[in-house]
């Protein structure tokens, strides 16, 4: 059996005296949808930030595709094929929808500024490949009707789809989704769930962070439950929902589990 694509070992993040994430192990395989759930304050966002590279662990390692990326900056992780979306949509407001998506392809362009100025043939090929891929993702996410729209006029749900398209255009090997269903309408959630399943079907590993178990569990192949920074369960969703520790963690926090 080959090693999982993403291997997190002993991940710990302290904020002063508070241990936000404690000695956490996570394995994520190719094409797998892994849900990271837990009540508010459990350490999900902190874990996400550590894996995405916008925060540094106090201790522990993050190995991606056999490479220790624990100390790599966020842009280098994206370039290695580990991309993300933002919980609060972060479009590039002054750019067209297509250009917004194309920015996600940044790391796939080779050569420097001199090649750009000299108009290297390879760059023209990379540019047309990027545009083909962007068009395909516009189709895939159903944003076609909005290509000419100013991105600041997109609805919240459309903005979320733009986030997803932007994170996929580089053909990443893993994608991190930060509460992707939050703020979406019922129909949008259903559409997003189909899209996430399709992403995994393409062989891309998906790490889904959410506190809404009802969105995440039907979709995930596996789930990890966090409570006060510690892993209290790791297994197939079917087992997770019946796990007494998980039920206890969410008990008295059912509001937190239910609202999106």
């Amino acid at each position, binding site marked *: 059996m080959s090693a999982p694509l993403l291997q997190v070992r002993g991940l710990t993040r302290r904020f002063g005296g508070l241990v936000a994430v404690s000695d956490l192990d996570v394995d994520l395989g190719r094409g797998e949808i892994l849900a990271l759930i837990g009540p508010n304050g459990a350490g999900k966002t902190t874990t996400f930030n550590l894996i995405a590279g916008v925060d540094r662990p106090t201790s522990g390692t993050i190995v991606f595709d056999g490479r220790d990326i624990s100390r790599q900056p966020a842009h280098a992780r994206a370039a290695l094929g580990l991309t993300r979306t933002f919980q609060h949509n972060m479009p590039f407001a*002054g750019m067209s929808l297509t250009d917004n998506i194309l920015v996600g392809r940044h790391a796939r362009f080779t050569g420097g500024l001199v090649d750009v100025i000299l108009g290297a043939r390879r760059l023209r090929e990379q540019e047309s490949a990027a545009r083909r891929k962007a068009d395909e993702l516009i189709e895939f996410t159903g944003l076609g009707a909005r290509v000419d729209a100013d991105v600041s006029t997109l609805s919240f749900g459309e903005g979320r789809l733009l986030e997803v398209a932007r994170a996929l255009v580089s053909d990443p090997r893993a994608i991190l989704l930060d509460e992707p269903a939050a703020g979406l309408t019922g129909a949008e959630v259903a559409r997003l769930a189909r899209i996430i399943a399709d992403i995994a079907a393409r062989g891309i590993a998906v790490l889904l962070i959410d506190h809404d178990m009802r969105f995440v569990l039907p979709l995930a192949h596996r789930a990890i439950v966090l409570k006060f920074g510690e892993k209290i369960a790791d297994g197939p969703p079917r087992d997770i929902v019946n796990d007494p520790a998980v039920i206890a963690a969410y008990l008295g926090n059912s509001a937190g589990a239910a609202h999106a």
Partner: protein
Amino acid sequence: MNGRGVHALGWLAGMGVAIGLAFVLGSYHTDVYRKMLIWVAMALGFNFLFGVAGQIAFSHFAFASVGAYGVVILSHQLGLPFGLAFVLAIVICGLTAFIVAIPATRLEGFYLALATLAFSQLVRVTIDEGGALTGGTGGLANYRLPPFFGVDVRGPWYTVCLVLLVAFTLWILTRVDASWFGRACRAVRDNPRAAEAMGVDIARARILVFVMTSTLAGLAGIGYAYVDNVINPAVFSLENSFLLLFMIIIGGSGRHVGAMLGAVVLYLAPFALEPVAGNHYMLVFGVLIVLAILFRPDGLAGLLRITRPGKAA
């Protein structure tokens, strides 16, 4: 005709008119025209730095002066062959920009503005205190463009050189803008965090843009040095840096057409306004700026509607 053909024709027509003008204008208007071309070149570079990449820098004229003083000092004070002096002046601009960029581009907004203002003052003081080498506050004169490979570039042909300077600047910036690098610059401007998450090395992008546009400013400075065959610190003053900023805002920040329109309109405006408003034309500019910011954030270029909003011009 396809888009490429229209594009090529546009360039050809523009170049034809710009070069044609060099041969029909009298000596007074030639002087006005040449300085306008320098402003257009400066505005194009600054627009990329400010409008496209979002860096609020006030060092553009400082780099122009590095280019201008560099070439004049190297070729006329130190007696190097012109070609070598030209290349060295550009290299010095690039290196200086690189050294300034490493700390400066780590700063955001207001702090970058301050750091580049400080750099501009440093350059100014260096020139003022440079003694015979820089000519001090009086500047340098009594030099001429030497024959280059046996060709004596004079009169309208020098104006043609300046047209080529603008064309070269526009050509480079258009290419860069339409590439992955141009998108990265705009992304960093609009949302640095998201840009980084997309794989953009923000520091690297910022430094590259700063070095590229500052070097282009140095090139424009070299072009300026032989317009009057006089350079002095006042030409590269802060007042001009602010005028450059106004040109971009009024013309339409982030678009090459806007930068060119803004430069032409604001450079020529005093000639039209001075008889009416006297020295108060700066006041008129100020009012125009406020109006532009309030009612037309996309500037004069926005009136043209050549491209969709948000699309790279």
